[in-house]
């Protein structure tokens, strides 16, 4: 039986509309990305509060900063590749350094655009965004968490960069789960090793843990929805209590993997393997296939964990 899967954009669209109903300061800013952000219903319900600047990402983020200056709570939503790379200086200066209360929503990030190719991938975003002071970086894992992260962002005073993926993912968290920014979530207990995953790779990590359990080894699985600020205590505990750490991300390994490596090197050296994209532009392929290709399939993750042992 295959578990039901979800496109997290639907959860985002419902959550931002809910936030807009609750708080009239909430607005969305887009770059001709209404459809790809699943915002058609939002635009129908809040036409005045839907600001489409056209295909102009630098302007889009600057306008978002100005709206925040004017007391609004802007959700700036665009394909992650263009939002992160094209408007990087605006994210740095107008949003983060200026402490403007802007929510940057990176749609279809990582390799979600698959065979459209590297121009449309944003595998660099974790690595880039986590270098910017004051910017919270989040990659929700499933639709429940996506909705909770959007609700949190609407109420949180401060800039945030949030990935919203179109890749099909199953519901991962147990009933009653509540997102807490900056906190890892233990989805499976174990001591043989720890798999730390984020966003779309968490369900793959859980499947890998099932494979490893069949070998007789129980691994810990941590979901790390917040890339920054990182739950350093959870990383150090994993290093102290389990045999080593494998990180898995739909991004360059300098994102979550880099952040974990820094914590281990400085606080608690331990064996580490990082699964994700390396120093090359991706070959042509679907998102799922590209993830499998870099070793982020359940089998690939399990094999990497076995290498640690």
């Amino acid at each position, binding site marked *: 039986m295959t578990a039901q899967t979800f496109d997290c954009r639907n959860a985002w669209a419902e959550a931002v509309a809910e936030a807009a109903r609750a708080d009239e300061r909430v607005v969305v800013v887009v770059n001709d990305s209404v459809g790809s952000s699943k915002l058609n219903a939002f635009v129908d319900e809040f036409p005045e509060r839907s600001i489409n600047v*056209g295909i102009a990402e630098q302007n889009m983020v*600057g306008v978002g900063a100005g709206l925040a200056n*004017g007391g609004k709570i802007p959700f700036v939503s665009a394909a992650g590749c263009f939002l992160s790379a094209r408007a990087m200086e605006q994210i740095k200066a107008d949003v983060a350094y200026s402490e403007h209360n802007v929510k940057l929503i990176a749609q279809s990030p990582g390799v979600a655009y698959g065979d459209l190719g590297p121009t449309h991938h944003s595998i660099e975003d974790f690595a880039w965004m986590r270098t910017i002071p004051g910017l919270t970086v989040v990659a929700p894992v499933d639709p429940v968490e996506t909705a909770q992260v959007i609700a949190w962002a609407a109420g949180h005073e401060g800039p945030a960069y949030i990935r919203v993926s179109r890749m099909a993912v199953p519901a991962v968290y147990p009933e009653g789960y509540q997102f807490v920014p900056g906190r890892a979530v233990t989805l499976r207990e174990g001591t043989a090793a720890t798999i730390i995953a984020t966003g779309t790779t968490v369900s793959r990590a859980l499947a890998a843990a099932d494979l490893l359990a069949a070998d007789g080894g129980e691994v810990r699985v941590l979901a790390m929805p917040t890339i920054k600020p990182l739950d350093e205590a959870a990383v150090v505990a994993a290093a102290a209590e389990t045999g080593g750490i494998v990180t898995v991300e739909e991004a360059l390994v300098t994102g979550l993997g880099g952040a974990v490596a820094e914590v281990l090197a400085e606080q608690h050296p331990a064996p580490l393997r990082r699964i994700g994209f390396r120093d090359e532009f991706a070959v042509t392929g679907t998102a799922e296939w590209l993830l499998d290709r870099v070793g982020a399939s359940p089998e690939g993750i399990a094999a990497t964990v076995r290498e640690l042992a």
Partner: protein
Amino acid sequence: MTAPTTIHHGLRHEVDPPLLAAPDREIRVLGRVPEGASDAETEHHLQLAATEVRRRAIQTVGAAKAGHLGGEFSITDTLVTLYLDVMNISPEQVDAGDPERDRLILSKGHAANALYTALAVGGYLHPEALRTFLQSESMLNGHPARNKIAAVEANTGPLGHGLPIAVGTAIAAVLDGSARRTFVLLGDGELQEGSNWEAFMTAGHRRLSNLTAVIDRNRLQQGARVADTNDLEPLADKLVAFGWEVREVDGNDIAALRPALRAPGSDRPVAIIAHTDKGFPVSYMRDNVAWHHKVPTAEQVGIALAELDGILGRLEAKESNS
């Protein structure tokens, strides 16, 4: 952010940086133009303020051994006309964070010293803070920051950022049904940045009549004439084509500048092409490309102060005759 104190008035945080040498005399904190002043009295007040700003700003650069005097002197008249007269803003509104205040975004953030000095002359910033310009831990960066100076709206410096932000504050006012206005001050060389044209297009499309962009048309960029680098002309035609109302004025003549700044657009955003001289009005600096960020010698500071004091003397003579 900590509340401003009396000593640290206008600063977001209390810090204790080293102090630059004191100026030859304290600036006159002229404050806003008094209510009910006539046009002549207002212009006089603003001319005094502009001259105060320039004579203090050059001493700051002389002491700090860094700054961008040429492009600061070209916009000084605009800065004082906005902060001391045209804008609906006051030190009290800034301190209270009044959401209904008018906004000024200094897109050419390298002119920070002129901004800080105009804020001090206008009563928005403690004059002593000017002695901390560029010093370790100072709130007075080489480029302005809203998390350091209360009256600053955006952290600018990289060019081509101010206009999109201003479009955002103007849209926010429209959403609020508020009459508050947004002003943005751009360099002419800065218009070579494409992000400005994205924002010109958006503002024209949305007919943001509450937005006024002042373009400091001093014809010089860092190392050469704009016309010799990547020419902007026909600038007015371009702006009209983007849906803006264009007003061309002498940007170093407060009597001409003031009415252009006061009247909002009727049904579209307003671009004021302020024809200025870099370094105005200092004889050796004026329209001279060398003075983008050149530091004056003590002797050059003295020459400039003598020239500026000549202007002050004439203004004061006019005052006693009236």
